[in-house]
């Protein structure tokens, strides 16, 4: 074994940061591409949530269009929890989280890797359920504004979600803790997303939508920054 193989002990550079993020992302996607389990489960779950809601809670038909954005986001939030939970359960399974923590990479690289993977899954789910919802609610949901809102909303969601999931998974009650930690924090974000989506769908003047969009962007920025800073504190032991 030649010394050349030895790892340079210099502090991790920018490129090594990106490499670590990609390694984690690649790992999650590779496992998913092999099994395709998570995505299909999230999808079926998303459909179920909407069916059950509309069934159990009977609303007058004329009310329905206005609540579409709410249902859409609640569905995404629930399906997202499934994804987050699984994504972290995988890390706990054979002690893999310890393996990640032992690696000489910035913890925030691990965080961003996991977060990006979760984001990809959530966006894929959104892309697939949108046409279905369009049919079910008799509305065209392929509005560029709505797509933007989904992009922004899910980013904030996975930022906090990944952070809290890594906390939940370390508790004894990991099977049940995540939604409890996540939902209360995510409410303002969901609200902003619902309002912004509703605005775009009802073709409200942009003036009315802008504050919600700004709120969304603000939340994203804050959540990303907070998650970035706190992840270290959460995973280290």
């Amino acid at each position, binding site marked *: 074994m030649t010394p050349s193989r030895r790892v340079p002990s210099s502090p991790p550079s920018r490129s090594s940061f990106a490499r670590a993020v990609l390694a984690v992302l690649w790992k999650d996607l590779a496992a998913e591409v092999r099994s*395709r*389990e998570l995505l299909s489960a999230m999808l*079926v779950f998303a*459909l179920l949530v909407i069916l059950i809601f509309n069934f159990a809670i009977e609303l007058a*038909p004329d009310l329905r269009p206005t609540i579409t954005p709410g249902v859409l986001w609640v569905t995404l939030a629930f399906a997202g929890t499934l994804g987050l939970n699984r994504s972290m359960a995988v890390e706990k399974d054979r002690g893999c989280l310890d393996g990640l923590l032992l690696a000489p990479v910035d913890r925030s690289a691990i965080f961003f890797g996991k977060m990006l993977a979760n984001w990809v899954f959530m966006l894929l789910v959104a892309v697939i359920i949108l046409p279905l919802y369009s049919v079910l609610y*008799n509305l065209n949901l392929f509005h560029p504004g709505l797509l933007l809102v989904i992009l922004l909303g899910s980013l904030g969601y996975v930022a906090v979600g990944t952070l809290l999931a890594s906390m939940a998974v370390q508790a004894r009650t990991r099977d049940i803790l995540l939604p409890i930690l996540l939902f209360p924090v995510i409410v303002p974000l969901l609200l902003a997303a619902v309002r912004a989506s509703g605005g775009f769908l009802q073709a409200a003047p942009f003036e009315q939508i802008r504050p919600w969009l700004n709120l969304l962007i603000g939340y994203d920025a804050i959540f990303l920054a907070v998650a970035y800073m706190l992840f270290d504190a959460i995973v280290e032991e």
Partner: protein
Amino acid sequence: MEPRPKLLSLLTALSTLLFLAALAVIFFYAPLEATMNYVQKVFYIHISTAWVGMLGFLAAAAAGIAFLITKNLKWDIVEVAAVEISLVFFLVAIVTGSIWAKPSWGTWWTWDARLTTAAILEMIYLAYLLLRQGIEDPERRARFGAVYTLIGGLSVPVTFLSIRLWQTIHPAIIGTASAQAQGGFAMSPAMLHTMFFALGAFSVIFITLLWHRIRLGRLAEIVEQRKLQAVE
């Protein structure tokens, strides 16, 4: 490899003929419905596929019971075949229903009990496929699958009866679907003939497809065994 049975070839030919005949009857024999015009023709396909699909789900449950009693994996193949084909039939029913709903109710979809229970029935069997995907041991996969088709089968009658269940409490919804389900719109004898012909044709098509799918499952099993022998 077992050759394709004569009867199956016959059935395949018959199914093709029946399908074409059904289309012909629907378009040329059945009278035009007064208000709906051509769109109404989708009704015959809608009702046939819905029926046959539901019967297929029940058949899958029966195959599940047979598996649980005999522990013979061939019933598992029958069960999967029945579920997969019924899933497609039922999807056709939902889609044709939507197509019909657009002109008649002015919307592709509405949260009516029948529509929702139908969609949920479809989800049950999607979940069934997901369940099977998550289990590697073939024997256990078969057992779990059988159990789930059995429980899923319980939802078939509910879906079917959903209109009646609703009638008692929510008359608002009934005005649309179930008045007709009870024969609310006057069907001329020609329409009735067409309907029964389509029903019969789709039943035969279903059986043919089922047979093909079972054969496919068997062949896959044989391939698996050959691979096994090759590995050893």
